[in-house]
């Protein structure tokens, strides 16, 4: 079980400010049922001050506790102050959250922003060009770009680093676009392989796809060595003395391996 703080326990057991406000001045929403997390936030605003706030959350214990805590934090506060509240502030007030659960709490901040945007009729975040790419986890474009700069190359690596793409997956396509915009469109580089996986795959393709073709002409081949992307092979049978050996190596074997495994493969005979 999770190691929840006493405050978190209290707030999911008896959450404060649950419900809706009929004549709310602003309503904010975040998340979606499909993602397993959804939040509605209702605000009453008078003279630039939040006079009442209520919430409804579909989510786990931390999601409920953080939504409830957020309403407590904003009631009676001027909008200028409320705008500055971060997710971190909410978590601090809760006495911390288990690291795996932090993403469950970002919705509160997101719904607040949505409510304020609706209230002002423009986006408060507009000054910056940052926009949310993954709604499930409220991950913005800049966060994803940063992750790419830190070395993430695939959507999966982005998910591991930032959670983005980890729930409903709707944002995966956009994450890929961001990766492409920085690293250039994806090469035929099919997947990241460890050296052992790479060797096994090369061997399996040589055995299954290439050897049978060569065998049709009574030829054959042997895998001699693999050094990085350089693959050393030895032709056998009729291939050995075949005048077209060089073109077989480059046009058939290398082409096939490039197509199936990695664009940068170099096949060397000898």
């Amino acid at each position, binding site marked *: 079980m999770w190691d929840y703080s006493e405050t978190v326990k209290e707030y999911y057991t008896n959450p404060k400010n649950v419900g809706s406000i009929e004549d709310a001045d602003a309503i904010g*929403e975040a998340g979606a*049922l499909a993602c*397993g997390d959804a939040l509605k936030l209702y605000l009453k605003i008078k003279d630039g001050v939040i006079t009442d706030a209520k919430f409804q959350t*579909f*989510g*786990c214990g931390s999601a*409920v506790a953080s939504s409830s805590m957020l309403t407590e934090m904003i009631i009676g506060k001027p909008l200028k102050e409320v705008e500055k509240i971060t997710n971190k502030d909410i978590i601090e007030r809760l006495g911390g959250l288990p690291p795996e659960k932090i993403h469950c709490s970002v919705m509160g901040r997101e719904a607040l922003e949505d409510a304020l945007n609706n209230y002002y009729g423009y986006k408060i975040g507009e000054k910056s060009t940052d926009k949310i790419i993954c709604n499930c986890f409220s991950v913005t474009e800049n966060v994803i770009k940063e992750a790419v700069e830190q070395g993430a190359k695939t959507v999966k690596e982005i998910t591991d680093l930032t*959670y983005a793409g980890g729930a409903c997956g709707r944002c995966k396509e956009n994450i890929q676009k961001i990766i492409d915009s920085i690293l250039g469109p994806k090469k035929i580089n099919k997947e990241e392989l460890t050296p052992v*996986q790479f060797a*096994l795959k090369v061997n399996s393709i040589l055995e299954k796809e290439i050897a049978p073709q060569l065998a049709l002409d009574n030829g054959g081949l042997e895998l001699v060595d693999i050094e990085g992307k350089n693959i050393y092979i030895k032709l056998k049978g009729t291939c050995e003395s075949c005048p077209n050996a060089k073109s077989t190596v480059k046009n058939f074997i290398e082409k096939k391996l490039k197509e199936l495994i990695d664009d940068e493969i170099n096949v060397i005979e000898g």
Partner: protein
Amino acid sequence: MNDNKNIIYLDNNATTMVDKKVVEAMIPYFTNEFGNPSSIYELAHEAHNALENSREVIKEFFGANDTREIIFTSCGTESANAAIRGVIEANPNKRHIITTKVEHPCVLNTFKDYEEKGYRVDYLNVDENGELLIDELKTLVDDDTALVAIMAANNETGAIYPYEEAAEIVKSINPNTKVFIDAVQAAGKIKLDVKNTKVDLMGISGHKFHAPKGVGAMYIKKGTIIKPYMTGGHQERALRGGTENVPYIVGMAKAAELAMNALEFENKTVKELRDRLEEGILENVKNAKLNSRTKMRVPNTTNIGFEYIEGELILLHLDKLGICASSGSACTSGSLEPSHVLRAMKTPFTSLHGSIRFSLSRYTTKEEIDFVVQNMPIVIKKLAKISPFQKELAGILGE
């Protein structure tokens, strides 16, 4: 009733309380009879005898022919790894393996491992009631198929899969393809009779039937060749090196003996209590939807989805009442994905995230079940107030 009087434990598919008789049977092998079963002197004899007597009991438990077909392991996960890796590595020329979309991670992730190594992997589907579509095997098994791994009963839904029939199909197409059955959730709940099936390997885990955690067993049919995945000494016919964990094996055998004697009770009394719980909840909680609808189910398990309410929140509120259950919701496990089993069953998103598994044992009492049935509507009513889907809930709850 378990000893912890404040707790209603309905999570027996996760793990079980160790039976007191099991603890008693184990104790001498920690103290007086601590010998290594492989040693030569008198002290070791009792340990050796205890080990072989346990093997006899576990043989019966599997419904196997011969004690030489039983290998002791450390858990269900090890049994699965030993069987799957053992078969694949013993057949290096075959590059195709088949399992189901709803296996336990100990099978799924082992298959993933081989998928990454370039193996061709096929996954059988389940239908919306949770039944496994074993007919898919007919078009999938071929000359290149080294192994088919299917669970006997699903840990999340309790669905029993027709693994005997599946094994028949596999063998009729390719008699050399090996069949491994993860029987971890079936053992102690339904009778195993492996000798009268075409199954080659089967795994069980002690802690799911009132033995301690960290001990399991594998059945390997006579004549089946596997490459030992744990190399070491000559123990367990050199198929699993390592000095046998005698006290735990003795405990598992005692638990198996008790479980065999309780099978009838399990399938009558425990089943009645499970049905009482299931019907009670479905009747009294209007947004409750039965996820495990198949008739073929182990007697102790039900999986119910509560629409528009999140599973972890339900568990936390049940926990306040001393009720222990589990959930396939993403948030409970800390993973980002909700249950792969319910997803494979195409459980709608409305109830997917609010799915709760209740799993009983022969220690569950009627009072406990009635307490849960009484309190479930109260908990759900309270939590429904928090949900943003008031309109939808009002439609269902009729308020």
